[in-house]
């Protein structure tokens, strides 16, 4: 398959211009920021609170915004034009994901600054947040491709966001309901676990399993996305 940076960048540029005029998206981004400001006024911000906000950024921006911008391309019949142009699947989805990646990482960064989060190892935590972001964007892409309109996407995104971002809130229920033990393997849970261990002095060698699990989620979500796109390329 061919990949052209120029075409991916063209789509990225178009989306930046488009998003700057899209109130629906900009207000969604304000949600985690508002909560971060609220938390920052507290005496002590715990690791769980930091990651509640970071996960909210992933959910509200990574999943929600990505699914909305893809569903909108379908709703307004603009995706078909891109598909019929020389742009290929990686270029189209890459361009859109890049916009969401920038937005998500910017929101995470601003929230972390507001709340004074200072990880013991910036490289490891930053890397883990970045690859987690890839997963949520792939998830948002999938939600967007499976739905036909922005409204439908936001409805489907809600439970998906809830499970993947806030699943960790139910960790304590695992003992009582063993069926919920999959929660431990959720990327959000892996990320918090990793971040806590970093604070106790863990280095990359101690954390490879967390990274591996998050990467496995990325691979799974990307494969599903490619399959769904190929299916929709015709007959959608």
């Amino acid at each position, binding site marked *: 398959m061919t990949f052209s940076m120029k075409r991916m960048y063209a789509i990225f540029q178009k989306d930046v211009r488009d998003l700057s*005029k899209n109130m629906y998206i900009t207000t969604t981004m304000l949600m985690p920021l508002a909560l971060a400001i609220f938390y920052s006024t507290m005496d002590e911000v715990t690791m769980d609170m930091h990651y509640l906000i970071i996960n909210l950024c992933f959910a509200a921006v990574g999943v929600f915004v990505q699914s909305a911008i893809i569903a909108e391309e379908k709703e307004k019949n603009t995706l078909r034009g891109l598909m019929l142009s020389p742009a290929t699947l990686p270029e189209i989805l890459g361009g859109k994901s890049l916009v969401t990646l920038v937005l998500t990482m910017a929101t995470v960064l601003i929230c972390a600054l507001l709340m004074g989060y200072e990880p013991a190892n910036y490289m490891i935590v930053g890397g883990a947040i970045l690859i987690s972001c890839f997963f949520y964007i792939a998830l948002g892409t999938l939600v967007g491709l499976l739905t036909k309109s922005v409204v439908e996407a936001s409805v489907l995104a809600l439970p998906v966001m809830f499970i993947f971002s806030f699943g960790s809130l139910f960790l304590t229920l695992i003992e009582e309901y063993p069926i919920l033990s999959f929660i431990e393997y959720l990327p959000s849970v892996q990320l918090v676990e990793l971040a806590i261990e970093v604070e106790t002095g863990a280095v990359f060698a101690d954390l490879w399993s967390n990274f591996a699990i998050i990467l496995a989620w990325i691979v799974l979500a990307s494969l599903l996305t490619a399959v769904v796109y190929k299916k929709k390329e015709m007959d959608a």
Partner: protein
Amino acid sequence: MENIIEVTSLAKIFGNQTALEDVHFSVKKGETFGFLGPSGSGKTTTIKILTGQLSHTSGKASVFGKPAATLNKPQDRKRFGVITDNSGLYQRLSIEDNLKLYCNLYDVPSIRISEVLEMVSLSKERKKNVAKLSKGMIQRVTLARALLHEPELLFLDEPTSALDPANSKHIHEGLRELNRKGTTIFLTTHDMGEAESLCDRVAFLNKGRIQLLDEPKTLRRQFAENTVLLELQDGSNITLPGGQEGAKEVYERMASGQVVSIHSNEPTLGDIFVEVTGRELV
């Protein structure tokens, strides 16, 4: 001459509904070929199959000598342009920004934007947001977008259905010019005037089948009644047969100054359509 599109025994079935059945036709290089049919006859379905947006049930559909479904490489995509009812524009962006995206995707310098906007008479609206445009203007922007990369082959699904006569005429001139420069055009329409004024050949599509296929003038001649219509000074009309007898009467009436006008009874494509299919072209 080389065939750009070749379709044999093409069929498309949606669930239990047959949209196309045993369709055969080919489009030669440089030709303007029209699919004429009422709504629901399978025009859009044909374009979607030919542009790889829809799979077909059986038969063969090839474009540029390759199966239509395999034309998905960037270099193939640059060879054709499409407008269908699902060609959307970005509402929040200006006409210019919409076209700029496509210039970048097709690797076309952005000076082309002025040229195509000129062609659809939207140069002054260049900076306007698409959300503020009328339906007809949107149709013209979509056409402009399909022309940006000067494709060898253009698929147009009812290109002027939302346009007033003046704008349609302007677009028709543009399309003829494009065709003169070598672009092959496959268009669908339910407007017989459009088919008549643009197409080298037309196919009548009815309920998913091609019922007639030929050059418009051949069809008109084939279906013409051999009669002439005379409009007389007293306001009445009379129809006279061709040949000796009719010619004599025409002469006499003309000589005695009764005749206001003479018309040959050539049917329009619309008349022929009704005669062949028993249906109106709506």
